[in-house]
């Protein structure tokens, strides 16, 4: 097996007294789409900047494509593309001119530049506005132009910082389709986001950031199983029974949340609806409804950060 595309060990960044990123370990293999999740200010962007060598880490080491981004930044940046949070272009120039400029900075052979730009623009469906000023582009179009820049440069690793923030649902879908197409072409992608549905649908693995540390790293399924304390949420409505008191009999049940008078939310590791129905009738209660659904990523996500907060409160 070849070495990982990105390998960070004990990555730390301090600004004065505050530690923004605190000992992050991260390994990304070729062809993966890894989501960096976490609330704003959790250290995602700083981690990204250290990975591509735009910020120097205070401690720890990074290797990208088996190169050191601090010692050999040009070689790294030739193969790594970065799409910053709400990317900016020169408004007075056309989309084509903007890309030509970065193509020249990237040292692409002059005879190839225009062909590569047009192919990239077709890929992101912007070829019809190539000669319009970027000032007239919508937000979604700018993000797509950013992706076109990455496609044009034919990079191996793309780092996207909040690519879908501020986009309407349709533009978001278009962007996700493009990202999937990039991955299908063999590009490795790192995507930072606080929008979970985005990550859920395209990422092979996620890393959860909290206060500068990675709290969880693994696949989306593993995350929902591990963190949600069971992958099933069952909505129970019943009368003449206190479910919180007697549900412990069923071993698969994790937590019970008394929502209102005759309404409970039960978490369990598997579908326990038959056991619940039997138990309620045996205890003389009236079962009104039972609804089960798998915990979504955003529920698991909220729960993850809620748990951390609660632990801190207790301490």
């Amino acid at each position, binding site marked *: 097996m070849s070495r990982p595309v990105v390998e960070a060990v004990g990555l730390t960044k301090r600004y004065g007294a505050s530690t923004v990123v605190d000992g992050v370990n991260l390994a990304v293999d070729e062809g993966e789409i890894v989501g960096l999740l976490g609330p704003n200010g959790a250290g995602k962007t700083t981690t990204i900047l250290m990975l591509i060598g*735009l*910020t120097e880490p205070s401690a720890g080491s990074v290797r990208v494509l088996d190169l050191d981004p601090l010692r050999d930044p040009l070689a790294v940046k030739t193969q790594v593309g970065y799409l910053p949070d709400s990317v900016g272009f020169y408004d007075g120039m056309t989309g084509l001119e903007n890309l030509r400029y970065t193509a020249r900075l990237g040292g692409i052979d002059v005879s190839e530049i225009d062909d590569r730009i047009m192919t990239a623009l077709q890929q992101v469906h912007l070829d019809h506005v190539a000669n319009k000023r970027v000032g007239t582009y919508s937000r979604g179009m700018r993000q797509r132009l950013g992706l076109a820049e990455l496609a044009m440069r034919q990079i191996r690793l793309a780092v996207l910082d909040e690519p879908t923030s501020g986009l309407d649902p349709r533009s978001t879908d278009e962007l996700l389709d493009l990202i999937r197409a990039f991955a299908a072409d063999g590009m490795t992608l790192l995507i930072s986001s606080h929008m979970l549905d985005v990550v859920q649908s395209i990422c092979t693995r996620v890393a959860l950031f909290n206060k500068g540390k990675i709290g969880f790293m693994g696949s989306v399924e593993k995350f929902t199983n591990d963190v949600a304390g069971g992958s099933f949420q069952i909505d129970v409505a019943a009368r003449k029974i206190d479910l919180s008191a007697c549900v412990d009999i069923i071993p698969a049940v994790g937590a019970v949340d008394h929502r209102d008078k005759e309404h409970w939310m039960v978490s369990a590791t598997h579908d326990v609806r038959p056991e619940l129905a039997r138990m309620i009738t045996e205890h003389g209660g009236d079962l009104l409804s039972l609804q089960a659904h798998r915990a979504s990523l955003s529920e698991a996500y909220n729960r993850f950060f809620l748990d951390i907060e609660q632990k801190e409160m207790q301490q």
Partner: protein
Amino acid sequence: MKRKGSPLTGVASIALKEAADHMTSARMHLIMMLVLLTAIGAVYAAIGQIKTTTAQDAFLFLKLFTVAKAPLPSFSSFMGFLLPLLAIALGFDAVNGEFSRRTMSRILAQPIYRDAVLFGKFLGGLMVLAIALVTLWLLMVGLGILFLGLPPSGADVARGLVYLAATLFYTGVWLALALAFSTLTRSPATSALAALSVWLIFTIFWQMITPLLASVISPINPYDPMTMLAQFHTQQALARISPAILYGETATMLLDPTSRSVGPIFMSQLQGALIGSPLPTMQSIKIIWPQIAGLIAGMLFMFTLAYVSFQRQEVRS
């Protein structure tokens, strides 16, 4: 830590892009228009003055740049006053403008070093300034030939070219100053105001302040005449902090071949001198070289300031 790759990768691309941007920007057109109009006005007035007064002059051509007809100042003092404005207009939002347009992180993620961005921006600005100055210079020479009806002599051209080079260094100081402010402040409006304040202080108020400062630093003792000289030296040293003063002295020395010195002269030093006779071009350049070197040093100093502050800046705004 040794880093691989040249810090100059991409400098040419950035410089050319910056130059193209400046050439097409409305800001540059407006100020260039202002400079051109005042320059033509000043030279036109000078021509009228020359025609009525000096018929006999070995360096008639250079008079175009230095002769003033009230109420207009001379061409060279106009340039000393207005060219900084042009340079500031080109540089005040060079770096913080990229941050506020959110293009900086994208550009820095390209396979170039950070050094290239600042070098490129400075070179691009300097290139545009050079083009503007050469155009202006040729225009003035052309006007002179047209209205005076005589071609410039070899010495005229030599002095004029050195003056052109000195002017480029002078505008370079202001470009580097504006660039430094654009890295030190986050908002383009703030850096523009800061650069303009420095410009006002050095081009207008500095000459009024230095005599006051000098009289405080080295007061005159009425029983010791040498203290008078000491005060004059202090005043001159203080005045020369301003690039506008250095440039003014340079222009006088280069464009007026009869001027002998930029400092005080004693009667004894004048013994045997042919007052009013021109100095050879090389001698004038030798006298004024410290001023020109001062302008170059000022430019490099301001650029270094901008460079250090830019290199230390975080990419995240």
